[in-house]
């Protein structure tokens, strides 16, 4: 399968934070959800992919091209929604259309205005009069109106109400219908990712700690609920993390079926991405 995005050994040092050997592979036609707590390195990784930050080591390839050397070639086919980075707010959606049609070869004014209509966004009002949700919808409409092959989205659903979030997710899903297109998105709203992501990559303190298909994560991984006595009998190699609550132990296991076969404990729940995040970050080894 052809890869649309490949990150190899990405390292970036700041005074108080470091990205360490980040490796990510996104195959064509797939959606990758990029999760992690605030300050884990999601935005830094996205900024490196987009060449917004430069002094890093490692290799980033988009569509098989180096993201710095072949900048122009790859940027025509990337659409980006970034957290708090956009056009100056004194401009209007009409201005954006006027500007973008001279920036992207494939800019589709008709499609852009269709999205504005669908989202109920005014065309002639300055962006500064927009609510946070309206602004986000405008950012999304702008990112996808030049028919990109890769969408890079940093928290695209943050600030949207549930209805708008659904609209946006529908757009992402119809975008991905074209098998040439892929999405790399970071989000705190893990339930959105459970619906749309094919792959989940989890970053914590600048390191990738997990990268699996959604099926692997949601079908194979599980939370075992057990008593202290049962917990003490379990081999440490057979679980990833655990959390002790008042009456029971929550244990994160990589394979529910194997665990059940070995220990016979049948109080194993399916895991949600939110539970996975909490256990991976707050749990003990």
């Amino acid at each position, binding site marked *: 399968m052809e890869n649309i995005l490949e990150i190899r050994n990405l390292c970036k040092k700041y005074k108080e934070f470091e990205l360490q050997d980040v490796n990510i592979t996104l195959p064509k036609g797939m959606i990758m959800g990029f999760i992690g707590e605030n300050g884990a390195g999601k935005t830094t990784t996205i900024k490196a992919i987009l*060449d917004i930050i430069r002094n890093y080591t490692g290799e980033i390839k988009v569509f098989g091209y180096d993201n710095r050397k072949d900048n122009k070639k790859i940027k025509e086919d990337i659409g980006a929604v*970034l957290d708090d980075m956009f*056009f*100056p707010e*004194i401009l209007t959606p009409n201005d954006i259309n006027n*500007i973008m049609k001279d920036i992207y070869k494939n800019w589709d004014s008709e499609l852009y205005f269709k999205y504005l209509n669908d989202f109920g966004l005014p065309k002639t009002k300055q962006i500064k009069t927009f609510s946070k949700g309206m602004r986000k919808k405008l950012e999304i409409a702008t990112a996808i109106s030049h028919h990109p092959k890769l969408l890079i989205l940093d928290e695209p659903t943050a600030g949207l109400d549930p209805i708008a979030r659904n609209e946006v997710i529908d757009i992402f899903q119809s975008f991905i219908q074209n098998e040439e297109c892929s999405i790399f998105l970071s989000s705190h709203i893990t339930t959105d990712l459970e619906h749309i992501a094919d792959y989940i990559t989890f970053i914590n303190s600048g390191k990738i700690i997990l990268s699996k298909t959604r099926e692997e994560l949601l079908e194979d991984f599980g939370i075992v609920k057990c008593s202290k006595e049962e917990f003490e009998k379990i081999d440490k190699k057979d679980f990833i993390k655990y959390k002790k609550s008042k009456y029971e132990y929550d244990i994160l296991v990589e394979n529910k079926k194997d665990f059940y076969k070995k220990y016979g404990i049948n109080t194993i729940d399916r895991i949600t991405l939110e539970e996975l995040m909490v256990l991976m970050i707050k749990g003990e080894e």
Partner: protein
Amino acid sequence: MLGFIKKDLLMIKSNIKIFAVLLLIYVAMAFQGQMDLSFLLPFMSVMIMMSTFSYDAFNKWDAYAVTMPNGRKNSVRAKYLATIILISITTIIITVLSLIISYTKNNTIDFENIIGTIFGSLFATILLQSLIYPAMYKFGPEKARIGLMTIIFSIAVIGGFLINYIDLSSIIKMLDFIGEYLIIIFSMVMIIMLYISYKISQKIYLKKEM
């Protein structure tokens, strides 16, 4: 490239009302002989362009621009080209208004004097913008604005100090000597200043971590 220039020009257009009102007030003052209109050229051009830098910084446009094809190169180039377009338009407007004011007040047009003053203002405008843009890209609009004030203040203080010690007549003699070449020489200096400034800004921007 054109898209990036349009972005700066559309931003200027959005704020044009404020500057139009300012222009009207100054024109009224110029009619009453309270001030020379040529002073407006550096003042307005620098103010207008600095406001675009401030809006860019506020919405982190620079980082967003990098996500576009050739965003790093085109963003800086467009800022300088938009500046040249703006200065050209402002110069034409102010020249025409100055000629009208001169004719209305005196029934004659002191062409040489007006063009000379406006050319001087144009030189000051280009000098200021050439100095301030690399600072804008390096330090951001807030710090660069303080830098601009410092430059203007320093020029005033140093100029005021030197004027007591320099034999002005020798400078005037020298300017007379190069007389007919004056405009050509200063025009070339302006182009060189702006070009060097552009190259420095681009170098800063190409390496910049947004």
